[in-house]
């Protein structure tokens, strides 16, 4: 019996404006599905509809082929990890985990070993007697997840549960969540505005904006083959160029930006205006033009600032003829290490490297 989640044609409006507009997706059993979007895009509304706190205006939501619409939250085979975790402060860790089992009607003797087993599996063996406020952020996280997993739901919904953690712990919990999900084999639906969380953990990611899904695909797809300008801009870092199409031949176009910079891009779309998104790591830095070799786009400029951020360091370069400022990733090894502000450098990227989209009507 598979426990897939099927959402189709779901619409929800609040006071005339759509919070979720005709959204459909399918999550196969045992996979990690993320919904990625900026705040206010409707992802929380979508999640609350699956959990049962809001009913959709139109559309269907089914788990394992059976519609769950109309069922109250306490009768759905779906459990939720809340943004603030919502651990019950009036109960200790074991009671928090036993809560759902007791509600289901399990009796006294069976509960304790069950709780002990799940605590062991999330690495909190012996923590049953602790009060909730004696736990660290990461431990609370694990209790919140254990509290859901102990019920063996068809689906666990996670509403930005890592938001409140500090950066280091968040990085750690990302990996831990992914491992927990793989180990238990439970389907996870995860919502977040943090693209790195979605990309690292998910099998499939849906990018949501303005109440609709922009694109659903694997993290790799979203990063390398964005379907819309929104996805290209939202997922990962990009340098965005917009310009007018001057020439067009055999799948190639020549764009001219408003400042007059000519850019070659691989694009077979129609439209007089286009925007091009280029990943910082697709842009190469060099001391001389010759080093850039066969790249279609090659520009000279002077380095204005060094933005040191360890492995994510970059430089700002002012293009010589148009004075446009461009951000380029700075490799932390090799000959570029000793660059200093004021140096003259060359930068460039291949014509196929960017993702190009038509602009306007």
């Amino acid at each position, binding site marked *: 019996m598979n426990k897939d989640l099927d959402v189709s044609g779901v619409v929800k409006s609040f006071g005339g404006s759509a919070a979720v507009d005709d959204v459909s997706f399918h999550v196969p059993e045992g996979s990690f599905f993320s919904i990625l979007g900026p705040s206010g895009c409707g992802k929380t509304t979508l999640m609350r509809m699956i*959990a*049962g*706190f809001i009913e959709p205006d139109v559309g269907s939501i089914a788990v394992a082929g059976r519609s769950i619409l109309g069922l*109250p*939250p*306490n*009768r759905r085979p*779906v*459990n*939720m990890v*809340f*943004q*603030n975790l*919502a651990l*019950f*402060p*009036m*109960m200790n860790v074991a009671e928090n985990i036993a*809560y*759902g089992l007791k*509600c*289901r009607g399990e009796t006294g003797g069976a509960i304790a070993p069950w709780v002990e087993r799940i605590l062991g599996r999330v690495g909190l063996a012996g923590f049953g007697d602790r009060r909730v406020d004696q736990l660290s952020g990461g431990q609370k996280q694990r209790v919140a997840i254990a*509290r*859901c997993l102990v*019920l063996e739901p068809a689906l666990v919904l996670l509403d930005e549960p890592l938001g409140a953690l500090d950066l280091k712990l968040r990085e750690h919990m990302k990996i831990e969540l992914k491992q927990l999900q793989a180990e238990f084999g439970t389907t996870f639906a995860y919502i977040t505005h943090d693209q790195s969380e979605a990309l690292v953990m998910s099998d499939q990611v849906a990018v949501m904006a303005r109440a609709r899904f922009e694109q659903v695909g694997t993290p790799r797809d979203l990063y390398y083959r964005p379907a819309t300008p929104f996805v290209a801009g939202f997922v990962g870092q990009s340098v965005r160029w917009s310009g007018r199409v001057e020439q067009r031949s055999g799948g190639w176009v020549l764009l001219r930006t408003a400042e007059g910079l000519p850019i070659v891009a691989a694009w077979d779309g129609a439209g007089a205006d286009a925007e091009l998104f280029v990943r910082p790591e697709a842009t190469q830095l060099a001391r001389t033009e010759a080093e850039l070799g066969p790249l279609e786009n090659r520009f000279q400029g002077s380095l204005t600032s060094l933005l040191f951020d360890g492995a994510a360091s970059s430089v700002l370069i002012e293009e010589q003829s148009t004075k446009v400022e461009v951000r380029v990733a700075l490799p932390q090894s090799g000959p570029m290490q000793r660059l200093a502000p004021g140096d003259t450098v060359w930068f460039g990227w291949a014509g196929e490297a960017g993702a190009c989209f038509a602009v306007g009507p």
Partner: protein
Amino acid sequence: MSGATRLSTFLLFCPALLWLGLLIVAPLVDMGALSVSERVSSDEFRYGLANYATFFDEPVYWQTFARTAGFAVIVTAATLFVAFPVALYIAKQARGVGRAALFTLSLLPFWVSELVRTLGWMNLLRESGLISGLLQWLGVTSGRVELLYNDGAMLVGLVYGGLLFMLIPLINALDSLDDHLVEAGLDLGGSRFTVMRRIIIPHAMPGIVAGSIVVFMLTIGNFATAVLLGGKNSLWFTRAIYDQFITRFDWPQGAAFGFMLLGLSSVLVWLGLKLTGQSLTRSLQQS
């Protein structure tokens, strides 16, 4: 702390200290002294505990006290029962203007003095009052109905008087309840009843304790409402104190009864806290 700050701190505390000292501590000390004095002859007194002994020797006094205390417990429970849903609605459901309006509505009756409110109840409940008239007009009864001067009337009046003092700590306590806890309780399979019993009520406990203590103390020490609505047979302990002071002019006996009331009701509150496993400091901190 420098000398100047210490002086200004002292000056800031002065009004409160004077108020407490002159109006509460001093009369209490005086009453305490009075309560342990026995009359030997018309103008000769000596110290002794005879006034306190009277309380235990005469069954009518401690029986009156027991009835008053029992009644106050019932009033407190009834007030909690009535106030809880209202507080839950104001704290968790009502929003914006509606919330402010509801809060003001529950506050409004307290802009009128207790005496006037009690007279209002008398107007409703007396033989020639509104309810009696209404029942006759509807043909439910043929003659006048006396609804005043019984335990029911006292209960209604006292619950009404205690309502606000229960509502405020309850609203404060429930206000801080995170909606996500309720949702999590439902999401994990709990029924509405389970969520109420295991999440909402435990969260509101400090407010329940604080409200119950205040209502219990106000009720057990209430005079006007109990005496006016309960009438001559109300057997209310403050009435016994009043009689000693005013009717029998036996101030030492009245003072002793007053201290008995203070001491015994404090013991009852302490017992209540012990039995329910609550702590006074925690309740007062959180509500």
